[in-house]
């Protein structure tokens, strides 16, 4: 029961870690480049989720100045602010890697990493 309670209390951290691991698994196992990028995105989501959930205060309000009642328990706005930056970074990396994938597809005719490696092997042996 204790364990269950612990899990429920920390469900957001566990979820974040699960997302991170799922993303990592995708990156490791898939040879499709697009899927790898998706994996990176999932990893990123996991980290951001973790970061945002750090700032959570139980019973806290959104950090907007509320003029009417004097409830001053806000959740920590800083992680959210930081994660905004993180999201921008991951978006740009995703876009950049997608454009690279487009180029790779043009030059190699495939987006499968193993096949690309085979083509590169072939070329180095031909040298």
């Amino acid at each position, binding site marked *: 029961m204790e364990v269950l309670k612990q899990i429920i209390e920390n469900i957001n951290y566990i979820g974040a870690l699960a997302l991170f691991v799922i993303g990592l698994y995708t990156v490791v196992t898939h040879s499709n480049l697009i899927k790898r990028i998706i994996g990176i995105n999932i990893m990123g989501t996991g980290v951001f989720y973790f970061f945002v959930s750090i700032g959570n205060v139980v019973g806290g309000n959104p950090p907007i100045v509320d003029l009417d009642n004097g409830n001053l328990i806000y959740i920590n706005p800083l992680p959210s602010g930081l994660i905004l930056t993180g999201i921008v970074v991951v978006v*740009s990396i995703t*876009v950049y890697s997608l454009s690279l994938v487009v180029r790779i597809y*043009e030059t190699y005719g495939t987006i499968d990493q193993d096949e690309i490696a085979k083509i590169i092997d072939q070329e180095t042996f031909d040298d």
Partner: protein
Amino acid sequence: MDDIILRTISRLIIPFIEIYGVFIILHGHVSPGGGFSGGAILGTSLILYTLVFGVEKAQKKFSHKVSDIAESGGILWFILIGLVGIFVTGYFLTNINAGFPIGEPGLLLSAGMIPLLMIGIGIKVASTMITLFHTVIEEAHHGSA
């Protein structure tokens, strides 16, 4: 996507999206919102335009030249505002310490330099989103330069 319904609806909806984007940008300092979110919305409107009307037409509306200027200009504006802080109090990007008003909920022009910064960020984000989208699309269309 040569579809009359899409085109008409987009024509109708895009100005509203843009207005909403500008609204968000301008409210960053006193309410939820800000340069990044507003800029993203603004950018989305143009992405929608590209999706519906095609890259060529969108390029005419928002060419590389314009996006170059917008992107650089956004950051340069940000840097310029930041430098003002140095001249006023000796710290880059100073706001509160420089004696500007802290900001009052509900009042648009009450937060010193922050609205100005947000405008720069909004322009930058909007143009970046469009440029990124266009670049990917173009590469898929035309191949390597």
